[in-house]
C-alpha cells in the first residue's frame, strides 16, 4: 500500500517536533525585548518559523501528495554508524590501533562482500597508516596501544 502523503508529511511532522523540542528547551531562557534581546528571543523566533515550514510541508503532502518513500538500506546505515561509534568508544580506552581495527571490521560488515583475508589486510594496513600519519607525522597524542597509556 502506498501512502500518498509520502516524505513531505514525515519531514513536516519531524520539523514540527524539532521546533517544539527547541521551543521547550529554550523555554526558561529570558526573552527580553526587541531592543534588548535576551538569549531566548532568537531561538523562539526560529522555532516558530521552523514549525511554520513544517506545517506547510505536511499540509502540502496531505493535500497534493508528496514524493513516495524510498526504501532505506538499513544494514550499511546501522553498521557504518556502529563502526564510528565503536571508534569513539574504544579510542581512549584501548587505543588507536584497536579502534581502527574495530572501525574497519564493522564498516566492512556493512558493505559489500569481499574476502575476509582482504578485510584483515586492509585493517592492518589502515592501522599502520593511521599511526604513522597522525601520530608520527602530525604529532597527535591519542593512546595508541591498549597497554601503554
Amino acid at each position, binding site marked *: 500500500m502506498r501512502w500518498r502523503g509520502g516524505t513531505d508529511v*514525515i519531514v513536516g511532522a519531524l520539523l514540527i517536533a524539532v521546533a517544539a523540542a527547541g521551543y521547550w528547551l529554550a523555554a526558561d531562557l529570558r526573552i527580553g525585548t526587541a531592543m534588548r534581546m535576551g538569549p531566548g528571543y532568537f531561538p523562539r523566533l526560529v522555532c516558530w518559523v521552523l514549525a511554520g515550514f513544517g506545517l506547510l510541508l505536511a499540509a*502540502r503532502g496531505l493535500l497534493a501528495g508528496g514524493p513516495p518513500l524510498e526504501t*532505506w538500506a538499513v544494514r550499511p546505515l546501522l553498521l*557504518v554508524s556502529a563502526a564510528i561509534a565503536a571508534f*569513539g568508544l574504544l579510542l581512549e580506552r584501548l587505543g588507536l590501533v584497536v579502534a581502527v581495527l574495530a572501525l574497519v571490521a564493522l564498516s566492512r560488515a556493512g558493505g559489500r562482500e569481499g574476502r575476509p583475508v582482504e578485510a584483515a589486510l*586492509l585493517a592492518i594496513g589502515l592501522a599502520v597508516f593511521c599511526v604513522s600519519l597522525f601520530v608520527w607525522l*602530525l604529532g597527535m597524542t591519542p593512546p595508541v596501544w591498549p597497554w601503554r597509556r
Partner: protein
Amino acid sequence: MEVFANFGLGLAVAGTAENLFYCFLGALIGTLVGVLPGLGPVATVAMLLPVTFHLPAISALIMLAGIYYGAQYGASTTAILVNLPGENSSVVTCLDGYQMARQGRAGPALAVAALGSLFAGIAATFFIALFAPPLAEIALMFGPAEYFSLMLLGLVAAVVLAQGSLLKALAMIVLGLLLSLVGVDVNSGVARMTVGLVPLNDGIGFVPLAMGLFAVAEVIRNLERPEHRLLPQGRITHLWPSWDDFRRSAPAVLRGTSLGTVLGLLPGGGAMLSSFAAYTLEKKLSREPSRFGQGAVEGVAAPESANNAGAQTSFIPLLTLGIPANAVIALMAGAMMIHGVQPGPQVMTSNPDLFWGVIASMLIGNCMLVVINLPLIGLWVRLLHVPYRLFYPFLLAICCIGVYSLNNSTFDVFVLVAFGALGYAFLKWGCEPAPLLLAFVLGPLMEENVRRALVFSRGDASTFVARPISLGLLLLTLVLVLAIVLPAVRRARAN
C-alpha cells in the same frame, strides 16, 4: 596600478616553497577526488578540515581552494572515459565527452577539457582580482541591518537557484539556524539548548556536522548501491586536438568562461549551475545542434571551462561579503573562522596577504593542474580500478581521527555518528543538506546582526525596511521567492 601591486604581493605569498607545496597538494587531492566518482569535493574538504588546522591560515585556504577547482579538472576525466560524472559539475560533459572517447578521440577530449579549464581558471583569477576589491568597498559601508538582509538574500538565493523542493530547502535553512544557536550565547553567557551536555557549550561542532552530513552520509549511500564496474573506454593514443577541434572549441571556451564567471558569483551558483547553463547555451547557438550528444567538441569545451570559472568566482561573495555561496565555500568560511579570520569585506584590508595569496595561488594551481592531468592521465585511469570496498574504510578512518583530533574529544565522534545518520535520512527524504550548512555557518552572524540592528533602532523592527539598501535587498529576496512560488500557484489553480 594598485591591482598589480596587490597581485604581486599575492604571488609573493603564494610563491613561497611552503605555499607552493600546499597548492600542489590541494590540486593533486582535488584531481583525485574529481576522478573518483563516489567522493565529492564537499566531503573531501570536510574531511581535510581538521588537518588544515595544523597549518597557517593562508596555506590551509590555498590547499582547500585547490581541492575545489582541482576537482573540476579531475571530474572531466571520469566523465569522458567512463561516462560517469566524477562530480555533479561534469554531468553534461558525459554527453559529448564519452561519445568522443568511443570514437577514439578520448585524448583530444581530455586535452580540450584541461586547456579550456586552464583558460577559464586564468581568466577567472583576473576577474576576481579586478572586481573583488570594489565589491568589498561597497560592503564595508553596510550596517547591521544591511548585513542581516544581505545574509537573508544570500541564503534564499542559494536555495532558489539550487535544485529540489524549495519548501524543503527553506525549512533546511531554518533548521540550520536552530542548530547554530545551540551553545553558550555570547551576549549573555547563558547556555542554550545544550540538554545539559557540557561539550555542547561551545556549540555543535562545525566539522563533525559537515563531515557527517556530507562524507559519512555519502559513504552509506554508496554502500547501498551495487558497485559499478568502471570500464574506461578505449586507449588514449594521442592527446593533441586537431585543428578543427581547436577552431570549434575556442569560441565555446570563451562563452563558457564568461557564463561561468558570472554564474559563479550568484549564491547557489558555482560549478554545477555554470556547466549546465554553458552546455545549453552552446547547443542553442550551434548551427548544427544535432551534433550535440554525438561527440561535439564544443559540448566538452564549454561546460568544462564554465565549471572551473564558476568554481573560482564563487569565492568572490565569500571574500568580499562574507556570504558563502555553496557548501564547499561554506566549509572554507568555517576554516577561515577557526583560524580566527572573519570572512567579509574587512579581509582584504586586515589580511591582504591571505586575500591576495589565495587569489594568486589559483593562477599557479591551474597551471599545475594541467601538468597533473594531461601527462599523468594514465595514472588516474588506473586509479579508477581501485574497488570502493578497499576505499571507504579509509575515508571513515580519516573522518573519525580528524574529528577526534580537533578537541581531543570523543564527544565529537558521536556527533559525527548522529549527523551521518541524519545526512543519510536527508538523502532519502529529498532534503538538501547544503542549505542547512550555509545557515549553520551564517546563523550566529545573523543573530548578532539582528540584535545590533535592533539596538541601534531602539527596538524598532522597521529599521530593516526603512534603510534603502536593506529594503532593496529584502525586496530582491521577496522577488526571488515569488518568482519560484508564483508559477507553482498558477499551475495549482489551473488544475
